[in-house]
């Protein structure tokens, strides 16, 4: 089943909302965005505005993008590579 889904994706049949997940992952390293509201809320809760994740590390994002390019996943979407 998984192989069929992967094949369908390669043939362009993946639903658009799923492709958006791929796009977000490639562009930020994360599925969900850290919005201005999130940052404000995190500060109010005593947390760092942006956690020390890929979102705050160009080098980490570069690694994720390299893996996605090598495996071919990045070719599944039309997206510009995030330049550092």
């Amino acid at each position, binding site marked *: 089943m998984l192989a069929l889904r992967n094949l369908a994706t390669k043939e362009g049949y993946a*639903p658009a909302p799923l492709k958006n997940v791929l796009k977000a992952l490639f562009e930020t390293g994360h599925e969900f965005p850290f919005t201005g509201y999130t940052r404000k809320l995190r500060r109010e*809760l005593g947390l760092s505005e942006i*956690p020390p994740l890929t979102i705050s590390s160009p*080098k980490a994002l570069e690694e994720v993008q390299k*893996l996605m390019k090598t495996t*071919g996943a990045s070719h*599944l979407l039309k997206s510009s590579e995030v330049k550092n």
Partner: protein
Amino acid sequence: MFLGCLIPARLPHIEAISIKVLDKLGIKTKDIIDASCCPDPVVMKSLDFNSWLAIAARNLSLAEETGSDILTLCSGCFSTLSKANHLLKYNDELKGEVNKLLSEINRGFSGKINVKHVTEIIRDIGKETIEQQVQKPLKHLKVASHPGCHLVRPSKILHVDDPNVPTIQDEIVSWVGAKPVSYALKMLCCGVGIKMVDPEANLSLLREKLANLKETEANCIVTPCPFCFIQFDKGQKEVSRKFGESYTFPVFYITELLGLALGFSPEEVGLHLHTTPIKEVE
């Protein structure tokens, strides 16, 4: 601690109270620096398995560098990281292919750590310690536990709980003085996993579950999964509107329930940030 995306980006109050609760129970957490999305155990794996595995392996390698096991708050992250860890530990061919990919970013997977969900950590702390720490027994709560799909299945890999009759959450509920409530559709998916591709079916599944809960004495819901949390907390409103019914169950993430029992204020727990009002059970 592997933060994931959903909790730090959408539910940071769960991150905050989880750290406080674990600290009070004697467990210090440290974020895994530079971690990315786990990635998603349903969407990303369905789109491209190789990419899913490679990114998961990178996250595992970051934890391996710290020498510590991974603690996750999210059942989705737990599912991805546990399955990837298992696949790579016991399939040398896959491990070789993934390590070839990781070598291009100067990383590698060796398979020396384990992945744990916060629910397991709380269970392992144990009844005696938890009961000693409880300052406000939650005697007024009759709690329906929703385990969700990703914490318990596939049980042969995850080894967390009985996949058909899970009991961990009910045990924790009783340790904080609340009453666990059993119900027929406990193992039914909340529906959130299909929301992106079939919003109608998503709400129908949730309605079936909520309607079943309404037949019981439950006055709130607890879950160990942030996706299920959002589905219940926000989805009740949508189900009520769509079907002309009324569902207003207060919803707790597992460490929120513990936080209240350990004496943290409703504001510290973040109850004011819930969509479904929770005043009735404070």
